[in-house]
């Protein structure tokens, strides 16, 4: 019978982890510099920073990459330390809810005004 907890070889996850890592290593410092270079800001300036559609799309893409990266990483941690299958699967579920919820919340935040 196929195991419900480890049917794949892991090569796909391994590659996904590396690909998103490279993307994040460029995108996150880039976004950080974009924000830090504009400081100090008042409320209007802060809003204007996230007004351009390109910034929102880039931020969303970065967040999706971050969510995928964090998913593989957190799953690795739980695979290593949580031996109880039921507990481990429950923790996976919590991680998925937190990550998917964060991305959805970010979308709602960035496109609230438009």
């Amino acid at each position, binding site marked *: 019978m196929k195991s419900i907890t480890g049917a794949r070889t892991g090569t796909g996850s391994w590659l996904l982890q590396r690909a998103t890592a490279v993307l994040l290593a460029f995108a996150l410092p880039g976004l950080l510099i974009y924000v830090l270079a504009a400081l100090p800001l008042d409320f209007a300036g802060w809003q204007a920073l996230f007004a351009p559609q390109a910034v929102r799309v880039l931020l969303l893409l970065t967040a999706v990459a971050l969510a995928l990266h*964090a998913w593989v990483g957190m799953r690795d941690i739980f695979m290593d330390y949580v031996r109880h299958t039921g507990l481990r699967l429950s923790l996976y579920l919590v991680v998925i809810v937190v990550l998917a919820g964060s991305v959805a919340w970010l979308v709602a935040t960035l496109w609230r005004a438009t």
Partner: protein
Amino acid sequence: MKPSARPVYLDLRRIHLPLPGWVSILHRVSGAVLFLALPLGVWALSVSLADEAGFQRLAVGEAHPLVRLLLLGLIWAGAHHLLAGVRHLALDADWGGGLRHARQSSLIVLLAGGLVALLAAWRLFA
């Protein structure tokens, strides 16, 4: 047949990690910390972009010493995770895998992460 008795070092005080081991476990710890910080960051962005009052509330909150300490911890976690991650990518590409180079790059990653945290502490608290 039971295997012959061998030492199992589960006592944390008896486990001595080499430098690359410290980089590795701290990469893991910082990753988990950053995962926890993600919803916090989205919350802060949401509140700060919602209206003027929310923006001011966060601006005032950011000045609190405990919040700045949390911020400092997250900055270190981000810096260490990025640097250790780049090191792991280099190792994946078969670069710097020798014992001497692995130790040197571990020391560089640990020191550089600490330096970033030190600079951040200076900006946040001085």
